[in-house]
C-alpha cells in the first residue's frame, strides 16, 4: 500500500485554472494531499482559498485541469458520490425556515438516503452519536434559528460529520467565533484526523490556529501556490512577508513547541518604510551573543528587516531564546560550557556569509573568549565590524587581561564604535 502513490495521495490537483467572468482566480495549481494529513490552506483575502474548497467539493464547476480523489477524476463522479467522499464545513448561515436541530443534522445523511426510500435505523444511530460527539444532543428539538452562534456552528459541523466522508474540508468554520470555541472545534477536527484517519483540508485566517494543528500547509498568493509542504517550511517570516505584506515574528510557542506567529506591530518601530525593509533583507548581519546583550540589537535589526544570524550562545541564554523567537539562525553551545572548536568554526561560517558583524557589550570569560577571536578574524576577512562600547572592557574582562588586550587590538584594527545600540542603524 505504502508504495502505491495513488492510495497515499488521497487528493491530487493537476493544472487547475479557474476564472470568474474572465478574471483568473486560480492559476495553474498543482498539489497533492496525503491520506491522513491535516493541511492548511493559507493566504490573504482574495487569494482563491474558498474557491479552491468549492472546486474540491465540486460545488463550483467550469475549471480546466484535473482533480482526482482516490484516483477518480471528480468530473466523472455525480454529486451524491462526491458527497460520500468529501464533506465541507462552512460558516453557519440562517436558513429561511425554522428547522429543528435534529432535522438539520439528519440532512447530512442525504447522500445515503435513496430518492424513493426513507431514513434507515442506521442513519438515526449515526445522527445520535455525532450529536453526542459535538455536544448538541440536548438541543435536538430546538429551532436552529434560535441558537447562539457557537451552537449553530456545532450543528453545521454535526451535519457535515454525519456525511461520514474520508476527506473533510473546512471553509473558515471558526473564524467568527470566540477563541474557546475555535480551539474546541479545532481539537475536534484534530481528533478526527488523529483517531479516525480523516484527511482534513482547511482554509484558515488564523495562522497560529492553523500551524498548531496542521502537518502541512499550502500558501496561496493571487491564485498561485506560493509555498507548500511541511508546516515549518511554509510558515516562515519571509513567506508571510511576501504573501501577506506584513512583518511578523515566527517563533516557537514555549508551551507546545509549535510554530508561533506574532505581528511585529510596525507602528512601534520608527522605520515603517516597506521599501527600505525590502532593501535591508539583502544585508546579512551577524551578532555576537551572550548574556542577553545581543537581544535588543537582534530585535531592533529584525524590525528593520535585516537578515540576521547569531552566535555563539550558550543554551538557556536569553539571546538564544530571542533568536529562537525571531526565527534567527544561531550557533549554540551546551550550557555553562566553553565554546568548542566545532561551534567556533560554525560561527565563523556565519561571519563569512555576513556583510556586517556586531559585537555587543558582553562580558568575556575563558569560555567565550573565542567569540572575541572570531571578531578579529571578521576584521581580517574585511567585514564591517560595529562594536557597542558600553561598560569599560576592564570591568567585563574575566580572563585576567587577555580579553582587554585583544579588544584593544580589535579597536585599533579599525572598527566602528557606537555607545548606544540605537546608533547601530545609522552605521549600517
Amino acid at each position, binding site marked *: 500500500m505504502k508504495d502505491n502513490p495513488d492510495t497515499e495521495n488521497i487528493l491530487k490537483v493537476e493544472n487547475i485554472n479557474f476564472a470568474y467572468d474572465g478574471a483568473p482566480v486560480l492559476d495553474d495549481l498543482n498539489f497533492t494531499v496525503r491520506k491522513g494529513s491535516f493541511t492548511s490552506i493559507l493566504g490573504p483575502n482574495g487569494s482563491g482559498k474558498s474557491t479552491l474548497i*468549492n472546486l474540491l*467539493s*465540486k*460545488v463550483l464547476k*467550469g475549471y480546466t485541469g484535473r482533480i482526482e480523489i482516490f484516483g477518480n477524476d471528480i468530473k466523472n463522479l*455525480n*454529486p*451524491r458520490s*462526491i*458527497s*460520500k467522499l468529501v*464533506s*465541507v464545513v*462552512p460558516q453557519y*448561515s*440562517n*436558513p*429561511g*425556515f*425554522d*428547522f*429543528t436541530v*435534529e*432535522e438539520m443534522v*439528519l*440532512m*447530512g445523511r*442525504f*447522500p445515503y*438516503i435513496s*430518492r*424513493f426510500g*426513507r431514513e434507515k435505523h442506521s442513519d*438515526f444511530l449515526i*445522527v445520535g452519536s455525532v450529536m453526542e460527539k459535538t455536544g448538541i444532543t440536548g438541543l*435536538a428539538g430546538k429551532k436552529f*434559528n434560535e441558537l447562539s452562534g457557537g451552537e449553530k456552528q456545532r450543528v453545521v459541523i454535526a*451535519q457535515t460529520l454525519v*456525511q461520514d466522508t474520508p476527506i473533510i474540508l473546512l471553509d473558515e468554520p471558526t473564524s467568527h467565533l470566540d477563541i474557546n470555541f475555535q480551539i474546541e472545534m479545532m481539537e475536534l477536527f484534530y481528533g478526527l484526523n488523529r483517531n479516525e484517519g480523516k484527511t482534513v483540508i482547511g482554509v484558515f485566517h488564523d495562522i497560529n490556529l492553523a500551524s498548531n494543528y496542521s502537518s502541512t500547509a499550502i500558501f496561496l498568493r493571487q491564485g498561485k501556490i506560493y509555498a507548500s509542504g511541511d508546516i515549518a517550511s511554509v510558515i516562515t517570516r519571509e513567506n508571510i512577508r511576501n504573501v501577506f505584506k506584513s512583518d511578523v515574528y515566527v517563533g516557537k510557542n514555549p508551551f507546545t513547541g509549535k510554530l508561533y506567529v506574532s505581528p511585529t506591530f510596525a507602528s512601534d518601530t520608527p522605520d515603517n518604510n516597506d521599501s527600505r525593509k525590502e532593501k535591508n533583507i539583502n544585508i546579512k548581519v551577524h551578532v555576537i551573543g551572550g548574556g542577553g546583550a545581543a537581544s535588543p540589537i537582534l530585535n531592533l535589526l529584525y524590525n528593520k528587516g535585516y537578515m540576521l544570524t547569531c552566535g555563539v550562545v550558550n543554551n538557556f541564554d536569553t539571546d538564544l531564546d530571542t533568536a529562537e523567537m525571531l526565527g534567527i539562525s544561531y550557533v549554540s553551545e551546551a550550557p555553562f560550557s566553553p565554546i568548542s572548536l566545532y561551534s567556533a568554526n560554525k560561527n565563523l561560517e556565519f561571519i563569512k556569509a555576513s556583510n556586517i558583524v556586531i559585537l555587543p557589550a558582553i562580558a568575556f570569560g575563558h569560555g567565550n573568549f573565542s567569540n572575541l577571536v572570531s571578531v578579529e578574524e571578521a576584521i581580517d576577512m574585511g567585514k564591517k565590524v560595529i562594536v557597542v562600547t558600553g561598560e569599560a572592557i576592564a570591568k567585563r574582562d574575566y580572563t585576567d587581561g587577555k580579553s582587554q588586550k585583544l579588544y584593544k587590538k580589535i579597536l585599533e584594527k579599525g572598527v566602528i564604535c557606537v555607545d548606544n545600540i540605537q546608533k547601530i542603524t545609522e552605521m549600517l
Partner: protein
Amino acid sequence: MQIRRASKTKYIILLVIILLIFIVVAASVGSAKLSVKETGLIIASFIPGINYFIDSGSLNPQSVKIISEIRLPRIFLAIFVGIALACAGVIYQGIFRNPMADPYIIGVSAGASLGATIGLMLVSGIRLLNLSMASLLAFAGAIGVTFLVYNISRIRSRISVVTLLLAGVAISALINSINSFILIFRSQDLAKVIFWLMGGLTAASWQQFFIVAPIIVVLLIVSSFFMNDLNLISLSDERASQLGVDTEKVKKILLVLASLIAAAAVSVSGIIGFVGLITPHIMRLISGPDHKSLFPASAVMGGIILLFSDTIARTLLEPREIPVGIITSIIGVPFFIYLLLRSKKEVF
C-alpha cells in the same frame, strides 16, 4: 426522531378526516337544501364496497342527481385546485427560500391571464378535449411565460434565485400591460375576462376534473420524490451541493413541475390568490418546515381551504356567485398581514 415523524403522519390523517367531513357538509349546502345525513348516504352510495350496505332505492333521485352531477364535480375540482396551488407554493417557497413566494411569482398568473383573455375574446367558441379555449390558452400562457422568465434569469446554466424573482416581476408587469392593452379594444369582453381573472369554479364539470386531476396527481407524485432535495436547497444552493444534491438540475426539475402544477390549476380555476401562499405557511407552523411532511400536509390543507372558500363563494349570496378568489383574499390578506407582523421579529 422516528416518533416525531409518526406524529406528523397523524396530522395528515387528521386533516384527511376533516377534509372528508367538509366534503359531506359542502355537498349538503346550496340552493337545494339537503340534510347532511342524506348527503352522506348519497355520497356513500357511490363508493364501491360501502354502497352494498345502502338501500339506494330509498334515496331521492333528484338529490342524487344534484350531488353527483352538480356539487361533487365542483367540490372535487376545488379540492384538486387547492391541492395543486398549495403544493406549487411549497415548492416555490422552498426554492426561493422565502415564505413570501407564491405559485404566481414567476409569471404563471400573468401568462395564464393573457392566454385566457385571448381565449375568451378571440376563439371562445372552440373546445378541445372538453376544455374551453380559455383554459387551454391559459395553460399555454402560464407555461410560456414561466419558460421565458426562467431563460432570462439563467446565467451560464445556473439559476439565480434573485434574478428569477426580479425577472418574474418584470415580465409579469409587461404581460399584464399587454393584457390591458388588448382589453381596451374589446371592452365588450371586459366583464367576462375580469370574472375569469378573479378566479372561480362555476364551470366545473366531471370532464374538466378527469382531465386536470390525473395531470396534477402525476406531477405531485413526481415532485414528492424531491422533497429531501428541497429541504437542502431551502438551506442554500451551495450547502445543498455540498451535501450531495445536484442542485441546478433539481432546481430546474422542481421549477418545471411547480409551474406545470400551478398552470394546470389556473387553467380551470382562473387566478385564485393566497391559497398557494398561506397554506404552506399554516402547515409550517403546525407540523414544521420538513418538506417531506410539509408537502402532503399542505396538499390536504390546500384542498380544505379552497373547498371551504368555494363553498362560501357559492352559498353566501345565493343565488349569486362570488368569485372564489375574492373569498380567499378576504381570508388570506389578514392572515398574510399577521405573518408579516410576526416575521418582523424573526430572521427570514
